[in-house]
């Protein structure tokens, strides 16, 4: 090829870097649409990552491993739900607690597994199709979770904006008092939304420890849970834009890795800062327009629902 043979491998790595963000972002989007702000994504992703990794090492069954990751994320989300929905604790503080707890508990569970290798998640291989130049490996050579991530984005988009249940969920997020007064169970619906968010974060974490870097390391999410939170603001709570944003951030992450490998004349630390600085820049650009945020953000986000009040 003519000097562009690096394009396909780069795109492939961008996909693996973006997929965990797609999962975590789309899960949190549903949670936030129901009016709940869960800042504990980082903790749920770590729980998912370590559980999936341990399950994969012990059983060798990757379907079971991903399911275990999702369950671990849901368990963490359930704790968050009990505190914020049933016991009406402050959502910001509880989210922080979830992250700190997740860092600790995942380090404890994973301590005997640090540095152990595991086979990376298997990639699709369809004779003929996958071998096509350029589009073959990109379209037909991914692992199952990449396809699932796209499916989930479209499914969530359809659910939120084309189904009655989705309308109810958005109503709960925009005006919990109104939804309550016409007989919907605000708390019940929010529990479901929080659990969905947990499952998605868990799968996002599982993707990190099974596919992106097939290993377990303490605190391996390195802030991705927080980047996912920023993504939702960037996407102004639209599922399709979460996908776009995740690939943008995935792109920046990979770009700096390749720049480091190519020996760009910049210290590696400066390049490693890029994804975090980009997050801040994007957040600033989007948040600048206060009315736009107010128009798109669920009106009841972060507010405690108390039916008697």
């Amino acid at each position, binding site marked *: 090829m003519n000097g562009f043979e690096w394009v396909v491998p780069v795109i492939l790595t961008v996909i693996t870097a973006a997929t965990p963000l797609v999962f975590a972002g789309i899960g949190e989007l549903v949670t936030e649409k129901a009016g709940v702000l869960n*800042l504990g994504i980082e903790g749920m992703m770590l729980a998912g990552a370590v559980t999936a990794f341990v399950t994969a090492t012990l059983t060798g069954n990757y379907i079971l491993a991903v399911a275990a990751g999702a369950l671990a994320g849901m368990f963490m989300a359930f*704790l968050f739900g*009990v*505190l914020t929905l049933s*016991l*009406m*604790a*402050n959502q*910001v*503080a*509880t989210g*922080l*607690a*979830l992250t*700190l*707890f*997740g*860092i*600790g*508990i995942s*380090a*404890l569970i994973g*301590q005997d597994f640090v540095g152990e290798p595991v086979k990376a998640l298997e990639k699709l291989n369809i004779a003929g199709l996958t071998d096509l130049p350029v589009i073959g490996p990109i379209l037909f050579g991914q692992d199952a979770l990449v396809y699932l991530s796209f499916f989930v984005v479209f499914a969530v988009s359809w659910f939120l904006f084309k189904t009655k249940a989705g309308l109810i969920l958005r109503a709960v997020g925009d005006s919990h008092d109104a939804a309550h007064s016409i007989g919907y169970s605000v708390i019940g619906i929010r529990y479901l939304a929080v659990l969905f968010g947990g499952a998605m974060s868990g799968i996002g974490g599982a993707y990190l420890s099974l596919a992106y870097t097939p290993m377990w390391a*303490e605190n391996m999410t*390195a*802030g991705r849970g*927080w980047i996912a*939170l*920023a993504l939702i*603001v960037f996407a102004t709570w639209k599922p399709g834009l979460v996908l776009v944003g995740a690939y943008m951030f995935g792109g920046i992450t990979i770009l700096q890795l390749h720049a480091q490998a190519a020996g760009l004349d910049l*210290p590696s*630390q*400066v390049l*490693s*800062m890029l994804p*975090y*600085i980009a*997050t*801040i820049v994007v*957040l*600033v650009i989007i*948040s*600048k327009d*206060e009315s736009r*945020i107010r128009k798109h953000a669920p009106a009841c986000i972060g507010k405690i629902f108390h039916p*008697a009040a």
Partner: protein
Amino acid sequence: MVYITPILALTLTILTGMLLFSFLGVDPVEALRNFFIVPINNQYGATELLVKATPLILCAIGLSVGFRANVWNIGAEGQLTVGAIFGGALFVYFPETESVFMLPAMILLGAIGGALWAAIPAFLKTRFNANEILTSLMLVYVATLLLSLLVHGPFRDPDGYNFPESKIFTDSATMPILLEGTRLHFGSIIALLAVLTTWIMLAKTLIGFQVKVIGTAPKAGAYAGFSQKKIIWFSLLFGGAMAGLAGISEVSGPVGQLLPSISPGYGFTAIIVAFLGRLHPVGIIFAGLLMALTYLGGETAQINLGMPVAVTGVFQGMVLFYLLACDVFVNYRFQLNRFGKAA
């Protein structure tokens, strides 16, 4: 009730901890003894507790002002790091100086560095409405990488065999030891002064009153003409300065030089300290000592019982969880309704 829930939360944490210990195959009573009593049953241990509590209390006291005003600065770890960089830089560039003003200047620079780092989220929040939780947290990663960059490059000790470390701080750049034979240093006095200052500030000054009003009743604050932006700036700068002090007191104290990693997450644990201390200066002292004990206890349990050091983090997270859960008793009154069901 406000002051009972931390004790309730602790009791629940300890009970859950005992379950966790038995699950890990360790005698729970022996584990608790190693966690909470062995580390501090001699003078050296007790002073180590103060050494560990110092950065926690400093960071937490700064955060507590912000949390009271609903300003969610969670980037104390980054502000701590930049404080250490600013203060430490003075020594790196003037290693020969033996002036008595060296250490005070480093402490001042530490506070300035932390405040400057916190000024970024303050500016982005007040000017561009950017969420301070996310920006302050992103800046933690940037600060850690910045420190790594500096100690791998310009700050590296030229005679240090290429290790990513600065020169070891000389006496004039080091916190005086308060008790011979221990590591207890002047930073603990700074922390105590910070607590006192904050207490007076919150209880007796107009700005302290504004912080409390904006936090509890923003609309009343606006009606009274208090500027929300001013409070955002104030609480972030104050929190940053305190975290910066923690940073310089660590590198000029127990650490003794600039290294790629200077804190085991004090800035994050300080969030727990602030809440556990009920955002009150005196409470924060107790909570800081307690969280410091979990660090020491984790180390002791690791050495004596071979328990994983990660248990510390689990304990810390659990305390905050239980505390937030128990707060339902503070915020609401439980009563049984006609159907005998809690409402």
